[in-house]
């Protein structure tokens, strides 16, 4: 067996192909790298082409052995754990070798970091169910988030159910991708850069109402900033309406004043599937 470094395109399918490749070529990857960071290495490296049939074969095998492992694999891939690919690869290898029983062992040393990361992913997705703030831009609801993990696939079902009659998008600043939804169809697609347009007067009005409500609802005698920060860490504040400075509450003065590349004037046409690449993991049904 040879030791080798794998590079892949960063998609979930690409990662599954790495697993396929390691079995096909009898290689043991010592690192699996998907973020295009081509570091020099003393080990031989290879770039793995994404082949959907290979990916599907790996995924089906895992799912056949243990559906819960397949789910764990998909969620584990979405986390922000630095060496998640290698850990997940080892998990699959062990699954194929020993069978799925070790999944029931909650104290298993190897699964522990992955479990923790998946718990954090779930936790972040749960928080963002509440902390996402939409702005209405000529009939379309738009929001920005800045999560650590790739939570969009987790948020998709919830927001689609919540706003089934609306058109909306959520832009993920960290991973440069966005969830688009319109007329019952949702797509997660990569989106290089995006800046929210300034609010119109109605939107600014609602923001102001919300800000005022937020400021009024707290009881001065119970002031407890530490508790607030425990429940709602500060890293979420940057995208939340109630913590914006005055600029966010004044309506746009003259139309087209801001050179926003993704302004509502030139509507982004949410819901248009850009390409058919299922670039986002877990975007399958």
């Amino acid at each position: 067996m040879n030791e080798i470094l794998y590079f892949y395109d960063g998609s979930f399918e690409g990662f599954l192909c790495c697993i396929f490749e390691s079995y096909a070529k009898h290689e043991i990857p010592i690192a699996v790298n998907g973020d295009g960071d081509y570091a020099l290495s003393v080990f031989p490296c290879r770039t793995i082409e994404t082949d959907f049939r290979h990916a599907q074969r790996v995924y089906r095998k895992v799912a056949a052995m243990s559906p819960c492992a397949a789910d764990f694999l998909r969620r584990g891939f979405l986390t922000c754990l630095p060496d998640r690919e290698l850990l997940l690869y080892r998990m699959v290898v062990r699954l194929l070798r020993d069978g799925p029983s070790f999944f029931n062992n909650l104290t298993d040393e190897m699964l522990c970091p992955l479990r923790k990361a998946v718990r954090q992913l779930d936790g972040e997705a749960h928080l963002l169910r509440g902390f996402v703030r939409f702005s209405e831009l000529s009939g379309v609801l738009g929001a920005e988030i800045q999560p650590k993990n790739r939570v969009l696939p987790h948020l998709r079902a919830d927001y689609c159910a919540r706003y089934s009659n609306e058109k909306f998008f959520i832009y993920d600043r960290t991973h440069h991708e966005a969830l688009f939804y319109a007329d019952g169809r949702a797509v997660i697609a990569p989106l290089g850069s995006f800046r929210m347009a300034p609010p119109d007067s109605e939107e600014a009005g609602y923001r102001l109402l919300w800000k005022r409500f937020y400021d009024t609802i707290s009881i001065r005698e119970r002031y407890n900033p530490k508790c607030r920060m425990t429940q709602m860490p500060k890293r979420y504040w940057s995208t939340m309406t109630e913590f914006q400075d005055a600029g966010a509450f004044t309506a746009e003065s003259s139309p087209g004043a801001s050179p926003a590349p993704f302004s509502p004037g030139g509507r982004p046409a949410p819901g248009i599937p850009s390409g058919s690449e299922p670039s986002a993991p877990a975007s399958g049904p």
Partner: protein
Amino acid sequence: MELLEKLTILSDAAKYDAACTSSGARRGPRKGFIGNTASAPAGCCHTFSADGRCVTLLKVLLTNCCVYDCKYCVNRRSGDSRRAMFSPEELAELTIGFYRRNYIEGLFLSSGVFRSPDYTTELMIQALRILREKYRFNGYIHAKAIPGTSAELVEQLGLLADRLSVNIELPSEEGLRTLAPDKTKTAILSPMRQIQTRRAENREELVKYRHAPKFAPAGQSTQLIVGATQDSDEQILRLTQGLYDHYQLKRVFYSAYVPVVENALLPAKGTSPPLLREHRLYQADWLLRFYGFRAEELLDSKNPNFNPQIDPKCNWALSHLDFFPVEVNRADGETLLRVPGIGVTSMRRILSARRFGALRIEQLQRLGVVMKRAQYFLSASGKMAPGICISPDGLLRNLIASERAPLPEQETLQLSLFDPAEAAL
């Protein structure tokens, strides 16, 4: 009056209500409607206010005009606060505007008593009907049933709202008599009983007819004010236990009394609200609802109040040392739940993990057990954590030390060298 101003007045008047949850309802999305309550059945916090409390619902009063004169209340008739009133249409539009922007999970509608309980409830029903029927709102609604409302109106309100609540506020009849002379115990308890029986009927209806309209699917809750009267923790907790047992309440909320009014019968203005006491009551409340404890076990007439220094579960454990150590690999779920540091989640994890093999003490931390408390009360295959020695006194000291940091600060008194001397002079 402008909407912004009304919102300010009416949310300011509603903020002392502790309840702000969106849990318990499981209504999926409906075609043509906006929102659902199923995606977060355990509730969803949309933000946290500066006092660290979760904001999940748009918590407002329909109006803060009130014919009652409860001494503890900011909205009492004799108070001189500014008065405002939402029109039902205005309120519905505001709710939808907030909901679409994901600011809130739904509406919490309460109200001062305007003219009469029935008249106020009719206005509330009107607002909710506009929201549900015109704006096709499918999200969460929590509505207040005002004591003294007629049964037919409560019925209508329950069909529109997910959760109903009737606030008891003062834990004893005597407190009610002195501080809220317009309210009576029967007037508060009768809508509660009605909601309870109606929900039981509704469950039967739903078995027979799947599409029967649901009556308050998320149940009912209530609120007790802590610290406005002389009631002990034991009285409050026994009342709570009774409400859970006999009225099937989903939640009892506790609200540390914030002195807003100067009155000889109430704590003076400027007294800080009893936050630690409120915290201990909530901890005990959780023990009643999820851990299988009874109020009688936690407090009795000899110890009518909680020890502020340690939590109720530790307190119980310290007075029942013969119950411990609990053997992790053998004990059943209920027994494990009695161990300080083990919660419902970690108890389930222990049950499932030990099927795989005997657990060792050092593995428990990985399962989510809080070892700084649990280590004194657990053994795994007969072994306890190394270096643990137990004497009731040392145990208490250790438990207090492990919890001190995260607690809200107690009033500290600066000691002075000279005070006693001056007093002597």
